[in-house]
């Protein structure tokens, strides 16, 4: 489980979720995003192309992150969800809360 951050030339900070996003590591993701906001980042992309599964705590962390980014005038997008991962967002109706793109390239084009 790891979160890798990189800065795209367009100014978007990309956070890749490798492995699972679950109760055991969700705080780490929240801290990563908070650090980015503190550093002045306002365009954030969380990419799930290398993610195995997400539990409800992981989904909850994304909800909290989304709220925090919005409050600070930023924009959060999600990308790289495979069919299984996307089904979790659809089941919980969170697909209506997030801007979800098929790929990171597509998400970057939308900022």
């Amino acid at each position, binding site marked *: *489980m790891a979160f890798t951050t990189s800065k795209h030339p367009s100014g978007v900070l990309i956070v890749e979720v490798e*492995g*699972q996003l*679950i*109760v*055991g590591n969700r705080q780490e993701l929240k801290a990563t995003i908070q650090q980015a906001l503190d550093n002045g980042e306002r365009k954030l992309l969380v990419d799930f192309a290398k993610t*195995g*599964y*997400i*539990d*409800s*705590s992981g*989904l*909850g*962390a994304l*909800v*909290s992150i989304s*709220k925090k980014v919005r409050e600070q005038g930023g924009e959060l997008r999600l990308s790289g969800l495979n*069919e*299984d991962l996307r089904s*979790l967002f659809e*089941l*919980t*109706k*969170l697909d*209506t*809360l997030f801007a979800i793109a098929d790929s990171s390239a597509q998400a970057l084009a939308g900022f």
Partner: protein
Amino acid sequence: MTAPLRLCVRRADRPLPSGIAVEIALRIPSDVSVIEEAVELVARHCFAGWDAPKRAHFRFRVALSEALANAIVYGNGQEPTLMVEVRAECLPDALHVHVTDEGPGFDPATVRDPVTPDDLELPCGRGLFLIRNLMDDVRFTPPGNSICMTLRRQ
């Protein structure tokens, strides 16, 4: 540092009268950092010899991860001395997984579905909802500290 998890696996040469071909047992401490390893251990043995679709692996892993998180966080209150028991029965037509904590239990009927517009931005409350939607059958044993989840081999 948490001690390595130890799994107990019993394989029958032929299915027992109960239909159980493989029985798996695992006891884990109330520590959320062991959940991922526990899920992989149990899943690996439950799916051994079954050419299951990728979707079945995903449903099983998410549901078991949720059940373990609920048992550790809400059931045992992350109290290090309390344990969570996992018992899986692999039958020819289904997998049954029981997760039991040492807490007082709860009434699952009081947990509402978190998908109304007002609840959408809540940071928690989706765990049981996901389990119910990902598994084929979900039952609780009174007083509510033990859940049995069934995944059918379709």
